[in-house]
Structure formats: structure tokens, C-alpha cells
């Protein structure tokens, strides 16, 4: 019996309908669909997919369990190495990590590893078969985690399982970091994030919200006054970048962080919200990453007739996941490629009326191998709009570097310098990982960094892991 070259598609909300609501786009697999997809796996002796995963999820093993219908065991298998599978199944770029290495991909579709991971985690949560992982006896060591995003939560989970006393400090009023303020509901339902966090809490992780490390207490205070034995800094990407063009501070110009925070964290998308957001009829998002897709799709759901993406290179160079670009296009987001904003135009009252753009063409490849966009002289044109969202990245937040004098910081990028192989920084018993070290990256890379740092913390504090 030959193996089906096509994967089982995951059913999705109709694009015309979902563009008007914030409910999740894909519905997930049924038990039968999951079993059928799982049975496509070849169970390779040397599974390349596992090497592609930053936390080395035991992929063929959990997929085998799904194929046999042992769904609860599949979820447990994933959780041996990945604390947040329901989240990773949704937001990991599987196509460039695990799925791209799948042998089946040579002739057809690779196994839908992400879909199956999501299925196992969702089913476990929905059926209430969640088992708390075994916890080792207390080692009597206190670890502070700065930031409750993917890096911090993963680090906290690893440490608490190994008997450490873990406290997570979160600056905002809700835990989850980018998972709650950044990624929209339609891509990652907040209920799932809450469940994952309450799971960590039931393991004994303490979460302190409204606590800004660097202000409420410095890293040194955490050691000297609060008697922590180690500190992991996973404070995230931080300050949004702007283009430094004319008109960028006009009314109706947002960073993607602000726009998404208003909508996701402050719930500006619900009816009668307490935090406002500009509901422009025409909204332009500048950028080509996942955050740009999230912003443009949020604008559409908030009622824009026309939600446009302006990106200076072509679609091939877009850093966003293919699936996100595909979803955005299906929903009717307009892509204005190979053009770059040169000025934001505002009316007399200071509110945005349009973006003046210039056309670009691709020149020689840059240091990252992406072809560099070059201006086509005299090709300026204007796109009318009532709101602009700038989604061109972030620079690191200065609060911790500025208040921790002996912590080495990259002069060029402002990121905390940490050895990516072990998470150790220049300061003893201080570890760092995630976007604060790498600059803006992915949820799973941050989780990988949190896990790596946890190993070092265990080794440094107890002399072994």
C-alpha cells in the first residue's frame, strides 16, 4: 500500500466569514483525520525532523501514538521535551524546522507535524486527560524568571519539574508575554495560553504580575534582597522600531506592538471596549513578517474595508510564514510589494490621510542573502488610509541592561550577550534567552533558549542536571 502523497488538510473557517470575527482560523483535526495523517509517517530510523526542532520533540514517537489512537500518551510524549505544545502546534514555523526535513516532502507533502502536535495537545486539554508531569524533590534553590513569554515559561517549567523554587516576574497585568499581547486570538486563542500558564502554576511556579524588573527591583536586588540564587532574563524584544520618516508621529500611526497590544491585551476588539483603537476604513501595515500579517488581519477584523500591506521587497523575501501569507491573501489583504513608504501624510488636524510610497526593484543580495531593494527614482505614489501600522521589528528594551551594570550588552544591537549554547551571560548566575538575546525571532527559538538556560541553571546551582 503506497503512502498518500497528500496530507490531510485541516478544516478552516471560510475566509469571507472569518475576516469579520476573531475566532481561530483552523478548526483542528478530528480523531480520524489525525489518525489518518499520523499513519503517513514513515517512522524513519534516523528522524531528521527531530534535529530540526529547537527543543527536539520526539516527533515519530508521538505521531506513532496518535496513529495507534493513544492520544493521551501522544500528548505526554510531546510534553517530555516541549512544555507548550498547544502553542507550538499553532505558531511554530514547522515548514522551516521539522516538516521541511520530512522524507515524504521530497515527493509530496511532508507529514503535518504541527497539525498533529496541536491535535494531541488540544485533545488532551479538551478531554481533561492532562497529567501533571512528575516533579523531583525540592533542591532548595530559588530562581527568578524575568518575563512570562515563551522563553521564561519554558525555563520556569523545566526548573519547577526539577525541584526548583521558581518565581516569574511579569511587567504587564497578564502573564504570557508576546503570546497574550502580540499574537492575536484568531491565531492563538488566549484561553489556551491561560491553561498552559495555570498548568505551570499548579506545578508550583509563582507568577508575580505588575513587576517591572529594572524598576520595581533590579537584577541585583533580586539576588541581594530577595535572595534568589539565579536569574533568567527573558524580557523579550522590547522597543518597536520606526522608519524615521516624515509624519510618523501623526494621529493614527501605530507600532505593531501598540496596535496589537490595544487589540489583544487590552481587548479593544470586543464590543464596547475600554481601551480605544482607530478603526480606519483603510489601514496600511508596513512590513513583511508574521507581526505584519497579524496586524493587517487584525485591522480587517476591526472593520477595515481595505487592509493593505506595504513591503519593500517581493513576496519571496517576506519573512512571514507561508501559511500566514496564504491566510492573509485568502482574507483579501491587499499586498503592495516592492514599494516603501517615504512619508506619512496627515491632514490639518494631524490625523493620517495617506502614505506616500516609492517603488523598488531588487538588486544584489545583502549579507543575509536576500536581494536588496533599490529605489526606482521618480516612482512615488500615494495610498490613502486612515491608520498606519509599522511592523518593521524591535530593538531590545534598555531597562535591564541599564540597571545591571556588570551585564554585557552588544554594542551594536543592545541585546544581552549570552552564550547561545548554554544561556550564560557575563554576570554570574544570570542567564538570558529569547528575543532579548537574539533580537526578534520565533516562539520556539525562545523556548529552546529557555530550556537551554534551565539546564545551565540546574548544573550551576546543583552541580548536575
Amino acid at each position, binding site marked *: 500500500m503506497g503512502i498518500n502523497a497528500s496530507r490531510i488538510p485541516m478544516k478552516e473557517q471560510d475566509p469571507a466569514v472569518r475576516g469579520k470575527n476573531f475566532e481561530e482560523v483552523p478548526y483542528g483535526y478530528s480523531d480520524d483525520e489525525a489518525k489518518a495523517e499520523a499513519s503517513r509517517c514513515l517512522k524513519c530510523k534516523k528522524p531528521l525532523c527531530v534535529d530540526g526542532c529547537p527543543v527536539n520533540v520526539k516527533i515519530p514517537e508521538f505521531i506513532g501514538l496518535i496513529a495507534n489512537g493513544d492520544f493521551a500518551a501522544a500528548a505526554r510524549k510531546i510534553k517530555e521535551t516541549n512544555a507548550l505544545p498547544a502553542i507550538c502546534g499553532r505558531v511554530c514555523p514547522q515548514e522551516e524546522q521539522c516538516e521541511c526535513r520530512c522524507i515524504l516532502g521530497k515527493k509530496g507533502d511532508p507529514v503535518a507535524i504541527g497539525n498533529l502536535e496541536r491535535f494531541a495537545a488540544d485533545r488532551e486539554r479538551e478531554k481533561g486527560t492532562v497529567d501533571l508531569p512528575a516533579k523531583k524533590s525540592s533542591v532548595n534553590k530559588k530562581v527568578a524568571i524575568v518575563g512570562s513569554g515563551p522563553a521564561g515559561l519554558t525555563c520556569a517549567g523545566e526548573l519547577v519539574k526539577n525541584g526548583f523554587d521558581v518565581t516569574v516576574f511579569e*511587567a*504587564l*497585568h497578564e502573564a504570557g508575554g508576546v503570546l497574550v*499581547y502580540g499574537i492575536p486570538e484568531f491565531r492563538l486563542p488566549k484561553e489556551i495560553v491561560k491553561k498552559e500558564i495555570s498548568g505551570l502554576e499548579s506545578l508550583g511556579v509563582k507568577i*508575580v*504580575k*505588575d*513587576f*517591572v524588573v529594572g*524598576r*520595581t*527591583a533590579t537584577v541585583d536586588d533580586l539576588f541581594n534582597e530577595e535572595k534568589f540564587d539565579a536569574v533568567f532574563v527573558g524580557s*523579550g524584544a*522590547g*522597543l*518597536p522600531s*520606526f522608519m*524615521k520618516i516624515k509624519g*510618523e*508621529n*501623526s*494621529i*493614527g500611526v*501605530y*507600532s505593531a*506592538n*501598540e496596535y496589537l*497590544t*490595544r487589540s489583544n491585551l*487590552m481587548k479593544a476588539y470586543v464590543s*464596547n471596549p*475600554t*481601551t*480605544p483603537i*482607530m478603526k480606519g476604513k483603510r489601514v496600511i501595515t508596513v512590513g513583511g513578517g508574521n507581526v505584519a500579517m497579524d496586524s493587517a488581519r487584525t485591522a480587517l477584523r476591526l472593520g477595515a474595508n481595505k487592509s493593505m500591506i506595504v513591503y519593500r521587497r517581493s513576496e519571496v523575501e517576506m519573512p512571514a510564514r507561508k501559511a500566514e501569507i496564504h491566510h492573509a491573501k485568502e482574507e483579501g489583504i491587499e499586498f503592495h510589494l516592492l514599494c516603501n513608504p517615504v512619508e506619512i501624510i496627515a491632514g490639518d*488636524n*494631524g490625523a493620517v490621510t495617506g502614505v506616500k510610497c516609492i517603488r523598488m526593484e531588487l538588486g544584489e543580495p545583502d549579507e543575509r542573502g536576500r536581494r536588496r531593494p533599490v529605489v526606482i527614482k521618480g516612482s512615488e505614489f500615494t495610498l490613502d488610509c486612515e491608520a498606519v501600522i509599522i511592523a518593521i521589528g524591535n530593538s531590545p*528594551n*534598555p*531597562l535591564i541592561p541599564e540597571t545591571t551594570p556588570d551585564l554585557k550588552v552588544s554594542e551594536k544591537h543592545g541585546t544581552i550577550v549570552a552564550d547561545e549554547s548554554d544561556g550564560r551571560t557575563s554576570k554570574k548566575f544570570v542567564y538570558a534567552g529569547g528575543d532579548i538575546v537574539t533580537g526578534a525571532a520565533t516562539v520556539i527559538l525562545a523556548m529552546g533558549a529557555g530550556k537551554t538556560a534551565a539546564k545551565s541553571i540546574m548544573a550551576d546551582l546543583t552541580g548536575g542536571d
Partner: protein
Amino acid sequence: MGSQILKKEQLSDSVWRFRLNAPRIAKKRKAGQFIILRPAADSERIPLTIANVDAKEGWIEIIFQVMGRTTMQMRDLNAGDSVADLAGPLGNPTHIENFGRVLCIGGGVGAAPLYPIIKAMFETGNDVTSIIGARNKELILLEDEIKASSHRLLIATDDGSYGTKGFVSDVFNALIDAGEKFDAAVVIGPAMMMRATCRLTVAAGIKTYASLNPIMIDGTGMCGCCRVTVGGESRFACVDGPEFDASLIEWDELIARMGSYKDFEKKAREDYHTCKLEGAA
């Protein structure tokens, strides 16, 4: 973390002083810093400057004017209640040094955040002249406290019900006309008042710092909503400020951005008011 309200006091028709239990913030805070709070779990996050502290007793005081839905929600809490969230201290402390002769100018509710700065300037050995202005006598805040930490306190009211009739800028002009010289000035108040006053102090050659209060969400540098053009560059009031060299601030842009949501805010105020009335009926 939530925080319990220890004391609630009405200072004028629309201005309130709340004392909040916040030992960590009280211990850490320096003059010029602010907090972010949410009165209830469905509130906006609003920044408020810390007006007073007692590190030993572990409390901070905030003084606010009821302006919108969130401050209305705050007003409706009582001693013994808790606010849902309180985070801080945020922002950079005021640069305090012995400048020599220092001018501290506060407009309206701006006197509240100005008070800890006046105190710190006074305690550092500066010769402090404070000018406080408001619409009328009833709205002059913290007169006794400010007087106790100033070598001289001058008052202006728009209607002449107290002190000089006119604006703080009129009082300032009179000092300059009398030949007085100052080495530094700190100005806090409504943006329009700061724009008008800072133009004068800067023109008089006084190094002037203004403490800005743009719209803010997270208060930790993450969202960029509070950006202000200072010296031709975008700066974030929450992590780069809230104080900036007044000679470099783009006031018109700041004032325009502060009005971004005025229609929404008006409706929210009305809805909240209606909802309270219906609740009472």
C-alpha cells in the same frame, strides 16, 4: 499586583488624593517617577506621577483629576478597596542637583507631580521659587506642602480668586521683568500650559525640563504610543523620559497626539455616567 487603598481624600471638585499600600514602590521611587494603574480588571492602564511617599510606612500617594472613564472608576473606589493593578516606579527620576536658583512651575493638577521635585530640589540646597497656577483658588493644590519646601511660593489664578490674576506665565514674566535670574526650571502641567510657559523660560535662557504625560499603555517601552519628537528624534516618554529638555520638544505634535481619542473618551465618560445613574436608580 493589586494594591489596597489606605486613604481617599477629595482635594477639589474633581481632584482626588489616594494613598495606596505599595511598599516596594515607596522604597524604590525617586522624584519624577510614575506608576501605571488599573482601578478594575476591565480598566485602561493609566500613568500617574507619584505625588508623595513614605518608604517606612510603605505607601505612595497619587493625585488625579477625574477626566475620563478610568479616573471615574478610580474615584468610585474607597479606602479599603483595592486597585486591580499597580506597577512602578516607572520612568527616569528627575535630574536633581544643586543648580543654584531653581524655578518650579506647576499648572493645575501638575502641582501634584511637581511637589516631590520641589522637595528634592529644596533638600539638595537649591534656592527654590515655586509658581503654582490654577483656574481658581479651590483648584490650587498642595499649597502648604509646596510652601514648606520652597524659599518662595507665588500663586496665579485665572479668575484672580487667589494670588495674581492670570497665568503662571504672567507671574514668570513679572519675575524676569524685575531682573531675576534662574539657573534651571522644571515645568509640569497641562500640555498647553507647558508649551506656553516653556517657550518663555527657554527664551529667557533658562535650562528648562518639562515632564510629559502623553498617552501610554504598557509604560515599559514596549508599545511606543508615548513617543514624542525631541530634538528631531522620536523618544519614548516611558523609558527615555518622562522629563525632556523643553527647548527640544515638538509641542504641537504632542498636543495633537494627546487628543487622538477625544471622541472615544467623551463617549466613554458619558456611558460610564449613564451606567452609574442607571445602577443607582
